[in-house]
C-alpha cells in the first residue's frame, strides 16, 4: 500500500461520533437533537462524495484500502476497502440517511434522542458492512447493525411492532449464524479471514473439495437470501416493513435488503463460483417466482405500506436474477437496480410516511382523491411510482432493461420472459394503488382538508426525485464505474472455477486430499499482509 487513506474509517465511524455528541445533549432538547443528527448525516454524505474523487475508474480491484492488525492471534485484520460494487451502496446509504432523519423530524415525539442515536449507529453499521474486507469485520458490522434496527421497529413502530421486531432479528440471526460456521471453516482451510487473500488463494494454491464448497455456498447463501429476501424466505419482510417507523422502512428497504444481494456479489460468487454456477438455475427460478409472486401479492394488498413492501420482494427478485446469470450486462444492471430500488422504494415509503403523518392509517380505502387537496405530494407520489415501475428516462428502467438484456444474452429466454411479466405487473399494482389513493372521488370527509407537502417534505421529495431523474438520464456515470469491477469479478470466478476444477481432477486422479495450504503458502500470504499492514 503506497498511501493509505483513512477516508473509509472516517466514513464508517463518523456517525458514531455524532451519536456520542447526541448523548451529551439533554433528552428534552428535541430541536438540537434533530439538528445535530441532520448535520452529522449531511456531513457524512459530503464526506462520502469524496469517495468519487478518490475512486480510480479503471481499477477493478479494491481501492482506498486500509489494513491494520487487529486480533493477531486469530489472524484478524481491520481491513477496509471499496470497489465498484460497494462504492455506490455507500453513497446510497449516506444519501438515504439524511432523508430518513428529515422524514422523522416531526413524526417522532417520544424518546427522540434514542431514536436519532439509533439511526446514526445504524448508519455506521451499514457503511461498515459495505466497506469491510475482512470476514470477521464484515460479520461484526452485519450483526451489530441488527440491534438498532430491532429497536427502531420495536420502540417506534406501529401495530404488532414487537412481533415484527423479533421476527426480523431472529430470521436474520438464524441465517447469519450458519454463515459464521462457514466463515470459520474457511478460516480453518485458509488460515486467514482476509477476503482478498482468500480470493487469491482460491484462484491459485488452495483447493476446496466440491462438497465443502457447496455447503459453504449454501451457508452464505442462506444468510443473504433471508436478507434479500428470496422467495420462500421473505415472510419477515412485510411485517418488518409495515410495522417499522417511516425512517426504518426507508433504511430497511433502501439499504438493508441490498446487503443480501451485495453479499452474494461479494462472497458467494467469487469464493464459490462452481457452486454458484450449479445453483444458479434454482436461485434464478426462485428469484422469478419472487418477481411474479411479489407482484401478485402486492396487487391485492389493502394496506399501502404492505403493498410497497411486497414490491421489494418483486424488485429484489430482478436483482438476484441479474446476479445469477453471470453476464456482465445483467450484473451491472443488478447493481444499478439495487441503487434504483433504494431510491425509488425509499421515496415510496417516504410518501407513505407523509400520508400516515396526516391520517395515521395505511389503509388504501381510507384515502382517495388526494390529488385535489394535496397536488404536490401526489405529483411526487406519481413520480416515485413511475420510477419504481421502470418508466423510460427514469432510473428503474435502466436497471431492469439491462438485467433483461443480460438474461436474454445468456440464452435464458424463458427466464427473461417470465421476469418481464413482473415489469408489467408492477405497472398494474403501482398505478392502481395511485389511482385509488390520488384520483377517484374523495370518500372520507377528513381528506378534503389535508395540508399539502410542507417545505421540509417538499425538500425530501425533491431530493429523491432529482436523484431518480439524474440516475435515469446519466446512467453511464454510474455504470462506467462498475465496469472494471464487474469484469474483474467475472474473471475472478472463471479463474477460481478453473483452478478448482483442475484441482478436483488431480485429486480424483491421485486420491489425495490436502485441503490445507502448505506452510510455504501461509508464510507468503502473511508476508504480503504484513507488508500491507502498518507497523
Amino acid at each position, binding site marked *: 500500500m503506497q498511501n493509505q487513506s483513512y477516508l473509509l474509517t472516517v466514513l464508517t465511524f463518523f456517525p458514531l461520533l455524532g451519536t456520542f455528541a447526541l448523548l451529551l445533549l439533554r433528552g428534552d432538547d428535541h430541536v438540537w437533537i434533530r439538528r445535530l443528527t441532520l448535520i452529522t448525516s449531511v456531513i457524512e454524505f459530503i464526506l462520502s462524495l469524496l469517495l468519487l474523487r478518490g475512486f480510480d475508474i479503471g481499477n477493478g480491484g479494491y481501492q482506498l484500502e486500509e489494513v491494520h492488525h*487487529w*486480533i*493477531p*492471534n*486469530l489472524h484478524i485484520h481491520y481491513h477496509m476497502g471499496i470497489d465498484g460494487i460497494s462504492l455506490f451502496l455507500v453513497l446510497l446509504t449516506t444519501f438515504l440517511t439524511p432523508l430518513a432523519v428529515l422524514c422523522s423530524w416531526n413524526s417522532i415525539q417520544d*424518546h427522540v434522542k434514542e431514536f436519532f442515536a439509533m439511526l446514526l449507529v445504524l448508519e455506521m453499521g451499514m457503511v461498515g458492512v459495505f466497506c469491510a474486507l475482512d470476514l*470477521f469485520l464484515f*460479520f*461484526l*458490522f452485519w*450483526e*451489530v447493525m*441488527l*440491534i438498532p434496527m*430491532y*429497536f427502531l421497529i*420495536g*420502540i417506534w413502530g406501529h401495530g404488532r*411492532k*414487537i412481533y415484527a*421486531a*423479533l421476527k426480523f*432479528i*431472529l430470521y436474520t*440471526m*438464524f441465517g447469519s*449464524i*450458519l454463515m*459464521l*460456521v462457514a466463515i*470459520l*471453516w474457511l*478460516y*480453518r482451510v485458509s488460515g486467514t479471514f482476509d477476503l482478498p487473500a482468500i480470493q487469491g488463494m482460491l484462484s491459485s494454491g488452495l483447493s476446496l473439495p466440491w462438497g465443502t464448497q457447496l455447503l459453504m455456498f449454501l451457508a452464505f447463501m442462506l444468510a443473504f437470501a433471508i436478507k434479500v429476501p428470496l422467495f420462500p424466505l421473505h415472510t419477515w419482510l412485510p411485517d418488518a416493513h409495515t410495522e417499522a417507523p417511516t425512517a426504518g422502512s426507508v433504511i430497511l428497504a433502501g439499504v438493508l435488503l441490498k446487503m443480501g444481494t451485495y453479499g452474494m456479489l461479494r462472497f458467494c460468487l467469487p469464493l464459490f463460483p462452481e457452486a454458484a454456477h450449479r445453483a444458479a438455475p434454482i436461485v434464478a427460478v426462485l428469484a422469478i417466482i419472487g418477481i411474479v409472486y411479489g407482484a401478485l401479492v402486492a396487487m391485492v394488498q389493502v394496506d399501502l405500506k404492505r403493498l410497497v413492501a411486497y414490491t421489494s420482494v418483486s424488485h429484489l427478485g430482478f436483482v438476484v436474477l441479474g446476479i445469477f446469470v453471470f453476464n456482465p450486462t445483467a450484473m451491472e444492471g443488478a447493481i444499478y437496480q439495487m441503487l434504483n430500488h433504494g431510491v425509488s422504494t425509499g421515496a415510496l415509503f417516504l410518501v407513505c410516511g407523509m400520508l400516515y403523518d396526516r391520517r395515521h392509517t395505511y389503509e388504501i380505502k381510507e384515502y382517495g382523491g388526494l390529488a385535489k387537496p394535496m397536488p404536490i405530494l401526489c405529483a411526487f407520489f406519481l413520480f416515485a411510482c413511475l420510477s419504481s415501475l421502470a418508466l423510460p428516462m427514469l432510473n428503474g428502467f435502466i436497471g431492469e432493461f439491462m438485467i433483461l438484456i443480460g438474461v436474454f444474452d445468456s440464452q435464458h429466454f424463458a427466464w427473461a420472459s417470465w421476469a418481464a411479466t413482473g415489469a408489467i405487473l408492477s405497472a398494474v399494482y403501482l398505478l392502481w394503488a395511485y389511482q385509488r389513493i390520488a384520483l377517484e372521488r374523495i370518500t372520507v370527509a377528513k381528506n378534503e382538508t389535508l395540508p399539502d407537502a410542507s417545505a421540509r417534505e417538499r425538500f425530501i421529495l425533491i431530493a429523491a426525485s432529482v436523484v431518480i431523474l439524474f440516475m435515469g438520464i446519466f446512467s453511464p456515470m454510474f455504470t462506467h464505474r462498475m465496469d472494471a469491477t464487474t469484469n474483474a469479478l467475472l474473471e475472478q470466478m472463471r479463474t477460481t472455477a478453473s483452478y478448482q476444477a483442475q484441482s478436483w481432477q488431480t485429486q480424483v486422479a491421485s486420491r489425495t486430499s490436502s485441503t490445507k495450504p502448505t506452510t510455504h503458502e501461509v508464510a507468503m500470504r502473511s508476508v504480503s499482509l504484513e507488508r500491507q499492514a502498518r507497523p
Partner: protein
Amino acid sequence: MFPPVQDLYRIAPEIVLCLFGMLVMLIDPFVPAGRQRSMGWLAFAGTLGAFASLRWMFVNPGSAYSGLLRADTFSLFVHGIVIAVAALAILGSFDYLDHEGIQRGEYYALILFATAGMGILAGANELVTAFVGLEISSISTYILAGFRRNALKSNEASLKYFLLGSFATAFFLYGTALTYGATRSTRFEVIDQAIAANGSGALLIIGLGLIFVGLGFKVVAAPFQIYTPDVYEGAPTPVTAVLACGPKAAAFAVMVRVFYGAFGHASHIWFWAIWVSAVLTMCIGNFAAIVQSNVKRLLAYSSIAHAGYILVAFAAASEIGVAAVLFYLAAYAAMTLGAFLILAYVGGTEERRLDIADYAGLGTRQPWVAACFSLFLFSLLGLPATAGFLGKFYSFSAAIDQRLVWLVVIASINSVIGSYYYLKVVVAMYFWEPNKEWTPSPMHAPMFIALLLTALGTIYLGILPDRVMQWAITSAQSLH
C-alpha cells in the same frame, strides 16, 4: 523439614485470602452493630491483596509441595478470574446485605474461603489436592447459598446444593480411588505415563467417568445440571453471581488438567462423552430458558447453556481449545457477573422484582441500568463487539479446527435459540409500557464500580481481545 520458601510464594494468593478471611472472622465479633460493612471492605482489601500476590506466583513458576500444586500461567489465569469475581461480588453485596438485613462479617469471610478453595482447584496437580480444593470451595458456597436464612427458597437452595454437591464430591472421590487403584498414583503426570504405557483398562474408565460426574456437577454440564435453576434462584443474588462464575471457572480448570493432562492418552474415550454432554447441556439450557418468566431462573438456565458452549471448546482437545476455554471463562465471568449484579440491584428488598414483567419500561425509568443490562444480555446472546461473541467465536473456531463441524452447527443453532429469551428481557425493558409503581433504589458507589468494571470488561474483551487471548494461549502452553 519445612518446604522451601518458594512454595509459599506459589500459594501466596490462597494464603492471603485465608489470612484475610480469618481476620474478618476474628474482628467481626468486636465490630459494633451496624458497622459490619467495614468487614466487607476488609474482605475487598483481601481480594486486592490476593491479586497483588499473584505477582509472587508469577515470578516463581513451578510445582509446589512436592508436586501437589503447580504455579503456572494457567493457574494464574484462573486465579485472576476467580479473585476478580470475588472482588466484584463483594462490591455488589454491600447494599444487598443491608436491605436483606444480613450484613454479617462471615459472609465476606466465606467468599474469601471459597475463593481460596477455587484457587487450589486451579493449581491442583493431583487428584486429592483437587478434592481438597473442591471441598473448601463447595462447603463455603453451601453456606453462602443459604445465607438468607429467613427465606424458604434460600434454605431450599442450600440444602439441595449441599446434598447433591456431597454426592458429586463423593463420586469424585470414588473416581480418584479407582484411578489410584489402576495407576498407583493420584499425580496427573504419573497417571498420564501409566496410561501411555499400559493403556486404559475398565477400572480407569470407570474412574474417569466418576470424576467426570463430580466435575460435571460443578461446571453444570448435563446431565448433572438438575440442581442449577433451584440453587441459583434461591441463593442470594450476589452469591448466585459467584456460584455461576467462580466454581465453574475453577472446575473447568481442574477438568482441563485431569482430562488433558492425566487422561490425555484416553481422549478417544472421553471425547464422545464430552460431545454428548455438550449437546445436551446446550439444548437443555436453551430450551428450558425459553419458557422461564423469572429472570433469575432464566439466567440460571442460560449459565447451563454457556457451560455447553465451553464444552464445545473443551471437546476440541487441543491447545487452542484450552485457550478458548480460558478465554470463554473470562468473558463469561465478566458478563454473567454483571447480569447477576443487575438482578441484585433491580431485585430490591426480598428479591421481589425478578419477573420479566417487573422489568417493563426499565429503559425509560433507569436508562443507564437498562443499557448496562442490555449490554450483558447482548453479550450473553453473542452479539459481535461484545465479550460473549469473541468467546463463542474462539470456542467454535477451536472446535472447527478439529473438524467438529456438526458440534459447531448444533452450538450455533443453539445460540440463535438462546437469543430469543435474552431478547425477551430486552423487549420488556424497552418495548413494554411500565405498568407498576416503581421507585428506583439508589445506586451506591460500590455497586456502581462493580457494574462499571464488568461492563468495561465486556466491551474490552469484545473489541480488543488480543491481549487476554495471548495470555490464554500462553496459559494453555504452560500446561506442558
